[in-house]
């Protein structure tokens, strides 16, 4: 199976503080689906930042799409980042842009044609139930709606790797299920998915691989959960 991401003895510390993550060893294969669980402060967000190339490890080796992350030249990072879709815990929507423009952002920076953008974004917004909020700015949307916009933005570019940090934290069960089905659909098309969540019920219902991050170390609990 094709390796999308692999970690070897990875450790992270901030300045001279203690290691937040230590001895991480894992591989994400193409088309795999993992849930990442762990208590608050266990290091889930730090691990996510490593994966979406916003942070570099202090030790160990990270391979992403076959490239050693430390050796990727700066001007090649955007092309690699375009293969990664990220749903941030705090959404990070751009407040002065409409729902449509927020979702279209990854396509715009990739230089996709306007016509194509309009078609794809409109379709996706209908799918996530935001077809009637296409021209609304984030401040006019509820928390759940903002979260769906963030998810739509993460998946609009059909990423090879989808990383989601608490993607269902602000939505009701019905919408949460709908969003998870969207992630599954993408997964079936070959997208590797890693979802950090507290929602144990959701994890159990979908039955994918489960990792537990505890005190900075990673444990595979797929079969013990």
């Amino acid at each position, binding site marked *: 199976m094709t390796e999308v991401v692999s970690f070897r003895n990875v450790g992270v510390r901030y300045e001279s503080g203690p290691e937040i993550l230590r001895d991480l060893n894992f591989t994400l294969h193409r088309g795999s689906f993992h849930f990442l669980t762990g208590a608050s402060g266990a290091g889930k967000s730090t691990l996510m930042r490593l994966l979406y190339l*916003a942070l*570099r490890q202090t030790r160990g080796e990270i391979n992403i799409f076959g490239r050693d992350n430390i050796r990727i030249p*700066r001007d090649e990072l*955007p092309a690699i980042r375009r293969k990664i879709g*990220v749903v941030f815990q705090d959404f990070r929507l*751009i407040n002065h*842009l409409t729902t449509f423009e927020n979702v279209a952002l*990854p396509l*715009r920076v990739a230089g996709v044609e306007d016509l194509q953008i309009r078609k794809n974004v409109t379709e996706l917004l209908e799918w996530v139930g935001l077809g009637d909020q296409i021209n609304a700015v984030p401040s006019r949307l509820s928390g759940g709606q903002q979260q769906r916009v963030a998810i739509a933005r993460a998946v609009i*570019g059909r990423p090879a790797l989808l990383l989601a940090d608490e993607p269902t934290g602000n939505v009701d069960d019905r919408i949460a299920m709908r969003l998870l089905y969207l992630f599954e659909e993408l997964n079936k098309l070959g997208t590797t998915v890693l979802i950090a969540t507290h929602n144990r019920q959701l994890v159990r219902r979908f039955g994918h691989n489960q990792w537990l991050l505890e005190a900075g170390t990673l444990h595979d609990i797929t079969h013990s959960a």
Partner: protein
Amino acid sequence: MAFRSQPSHLPLDSDSSTRFLPSIVALMVALLTFSIVGLAALHDSVGKWSGQIEGSLSIQVPPTGMADREPEEREQALQATVDDIIEQLADMPGISRIEELSPETMSALLEPWLGPDEIVSELPIPRIIEITPETGFNFDMLERRLGEIAPEAVLDDHRIWIERIADVAFSVELALMALIVVLFGATMLSVVFATRSGLSIHRTIIELLHLIGAQDSYIAGQFARHNLRLAFFGALIGLLIALPVSGVIAWLGMRAGWPIPTLVFSPLFIGIIIAIPFVVAGVAQMTAKRTVLRVLRRML
């Protein structure tokens, strides 16, 4: 120059720099325009003065040692000296014209100070010989010849004071050129400051754009377009302020008898003035782009 070819993902229009930058650019461009107009006027005058250095000179023949003579006898002696000088210098190479200033012209020149003709004719006033030299005329040779013909005669070629004024004017010209450079520098620094402030304000959006795969050039392009627009707007305002003010100053100068510098009507000068907003906007655009790229290179 396309001001807006794609939607801006950075809310730069709401920044304080959006108000600050056009104002500072307008001020700089107004000062820049004044400097350029001043430079043109001064350059014109220096050119004219330099022409005058070669354009005219005069010889004073004073009635030295004739104080005790009768006026008629004194005038005859002076006339003889003047005639002698004119005769001997007339065939000197490089002199296109030599003639004595007529008594009427002398009287007219002296009348404001000495009163009516009758008094002038009774005073021991020097005679003046005017010479129009050709280009490249040898002044030193003239000075030597004059010393041989009439040692008491004084060659007044206006060169010293005109040269001094021209030197001062040239120094002012250099100072104005330096001022233009400083103004450009100050404009660029203002752009750098505004851009850095924008980068700092929008750091989270810039980080987001990076994370979704935006190239540095894409982000820098947004700042560059924004600053191009603001600087062009500011420069137009500055120009619209400076030109009428310069016109009023020129009008007041004309009323005071100053000559109008012909250079300000030349196509080169008009071209330079028209180019100011475009050059300033282009410089602002490039400065913003380079500043953003330099800062982004330090980010992951």
